[in-house]
């Protein structure tokens, strides 16, 4: 599957104003027109009516970076990202040394029995199993990577301990990386992707959760201050499979994680959690996509972020698409931000597109709260000093996500990291 140049389009217009069936007379009445495609119909729940490109169903996907054109920053999926700080991941050759990948049991312990770790070439059949790149930077990495790491949890294996995939950067040369995680039928495992060190890397992570499997993937971004990381994490969730994805983004200059989860069999269950803590100057961006393409699947999304310091910027975009076929879908997504100081900015955009009325439920929520003087007054009026009060609130706010990880050693480590973040901000 190496040099694939096809474009996967689902009812997508190649040019504004056109659908695959023909020309729309006017984007504004596209939904009512006989020529309107599926993408046009979905807009009532998503972005601006009559802007076909805003439908997630119509988003271009391709293995070729050039199919996406050069980025200008005006693209829907790049409009919040400071492109300059990508250091050329979007435009230059990704030929530098990629971060090293070391796979083991927890904390460097022996790999759990049965787990297979391979380094494979581009022609390996498992590459491309979970999806096609959804943006230019991801496609650029796809074109550039030389070899991939494939981690396989064998069929029916029930792992008692986790699998740690430590991804450590040692240089800031532009690089590309590819990782594939396969949870075979009826297996059960927790895999932690642990990113650290310095890097400028575009990464594609493919996750294949096969029928009946139960997989948790935790992706921790605790990079050094100078790291730039674009990570597309695409998952295919098979029939009756259970998938839990947790992102924890704390370190790095610019981190942009785009987890996309697609249901490919009925009865699938996906939970996507995330936690981010942005300090002064950091740009931390998470763009989720849940693609309900088949019937009777359930998805839950909860991302929580804290921000402190001047020009701390976080972006959360949650696209949930419930396609016509996806009857019986049960879906809910929420993003909650807590702004701790002035000068920080949290963007939060939930997009729910529903193409069928026959669903169990679908909802979204987005709140950005300020830790305000009234909260502080209440806690201090009970004798709690200001610094303790602030920490109490932040710790409590983020704990809801940490506790989802259920790997005690990692939870402890992340709690300690959060303590350091709080101290760094003099909170």
């Amino acid at each position, binding site marked *: 599957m190496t040099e694939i140049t096809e474009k996967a389009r689902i009812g997508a217009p190649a040019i504004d104003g056109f659908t695959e069936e023909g020309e729309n007379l006017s984007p504004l009445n596209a939904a009512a027109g006989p020529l309107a495609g599926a993408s046009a119909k979905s807009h009532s729940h998503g972005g601006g009516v009559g802007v076909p490109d805003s439908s997630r169903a119509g988003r271009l996907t391709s293995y070729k970076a050039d199919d996406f054109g050069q980025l200008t920053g005006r693209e829907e999926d790049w409009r919040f990202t400071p492109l300059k700080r990508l250091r050329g991941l979007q435009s230059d050759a990704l030929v530098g040394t990629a971060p090293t990948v070391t796979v083991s049991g927890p904390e460097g312990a022996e790999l759990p029995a049965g787990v297979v770790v391979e380094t494979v070439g581009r022609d390996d059949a498992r590459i491309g199993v979970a999806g096609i790149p959804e943006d230019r930077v991801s496609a650029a990495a796809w074109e550039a990577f030389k070899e991939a790491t494939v981690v396989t949890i064998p069929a029916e294996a029930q792992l008692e301990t986790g699998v740690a995939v430590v991804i450590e950067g040692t240089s800031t040369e532009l690089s590309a990386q590819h990782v594939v995680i396969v949870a075979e039928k009826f297996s059960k495992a927790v895999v932690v992707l642990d990113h650290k060190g310095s890097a400028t890397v575009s990464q594609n992570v493919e996750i294949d959760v096969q029928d009946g499997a139960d997989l948790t993937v935790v992706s921790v971004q605790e990079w050094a201050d100078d790291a730039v990381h674009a990570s597309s994490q695409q998952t295919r969730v098979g029939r009756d499979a259970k998938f839990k994805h947790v992102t924890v983004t704390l370190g790095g200059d610019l981190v942009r994680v785009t987890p996309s989860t697609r249901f490919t069999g009925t009865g699938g269950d996906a939970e996507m959690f995330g936690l981010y803590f942005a300090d002064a100057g950091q740009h931390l961006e998470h763009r989720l996509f849940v693609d309900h393409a088949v019937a009777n699947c359930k998805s839950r999304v909860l991302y929580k972020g804290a921000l402190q310091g001047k020009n701390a910027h976080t972006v959360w975009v949650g696209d949930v698409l419930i396609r016509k076929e996806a009857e019986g879908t049960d879906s809910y997504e929420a993003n909650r931000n*807590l702004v701790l100081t002035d000068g920080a900015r949290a963007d939060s955009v939930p997009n729910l597109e529903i193409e069928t009325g026959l669903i169990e439920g679908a909802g979204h929520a987005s709140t950005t709260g300020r830790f305000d003087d009234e909260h502080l*007054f*209440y806690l201090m*009026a009970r*004798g*709690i000093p200001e610094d303790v009060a602030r920490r109490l*609130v932040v*710790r409590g706010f983020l704990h809801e996500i940490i506790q989802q990880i259920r790997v005690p050693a990692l939870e402890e480590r992340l709690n300690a990291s959060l303590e350091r973040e709080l101290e760094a901000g003099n909170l």
Partner: protein
Amino acid sequence: MSTLEIKDLHVSIDTEQGSKEILKGVSLTINTGEIHAIMGPNGSGKSTLASTIAGHPRYTVDSGSITLDGEDVLAMSVDERARAGLFLAMQYPVEVPGVTMTNFLRTAKTALDGEAPSLRHWTKDVKEAMSQLRIDADFAQRNVNEGFSGGEKKRVEILQLELFKPKFAIMDETDSGLDVDALKVVSEGHNRVHADGAMGTLLITHYTRILRYIKPNFVHVFVDGKIAEEGGPELADRLEEEGYDRYLTAAKA
């Protein structure tokens, strides 16, 4: 025995139209074991007095003094006042995101006592106090006041009163919005702490109803930022019959 003394207190707030004087010379002395009821119409400045004692940053003290056993309360930060023994049961307790009741209560108790409470006793005390106030046990795991009904929030304020045992309790319209059953439960909570004999109470209320359950030694009628009349419990009975109209006409004139 402790004394909380308020002398000729003038307090203003910043509004869009500039500074506005709310308290216009309030003097009041409360000793341990005493219950003082402050009664007055809406907008007369009762919450302003309560919040000023607790140190809410919105209120500016222009003149006058507040002392606790001679110590200058106005010079203390909000948390220092609480640690000195002042407790405000708020009229509108805020919801604090992300902090469970359990965690909050333990953190506050630790701060107030200067050391962590013995876990075994503390857990028992909290459970007992919650059940006496008819607060569901699962509230312990919920975030502070988050999604609590008005009545539940008030009960949680009294829960804290019972657990923290302050020198002086200021109860700002704890009775408002409570049905009779809840009113009894909350009053009993206060009375249990009062019975220990180590607390003085400033009971702020709009209605006389709560005074059937919490018996004041003194009643102060608060009108337009000042105490308009003072007396014993019989004054409350008169207010019950006559309302505040008499004072309001006088204030306007």
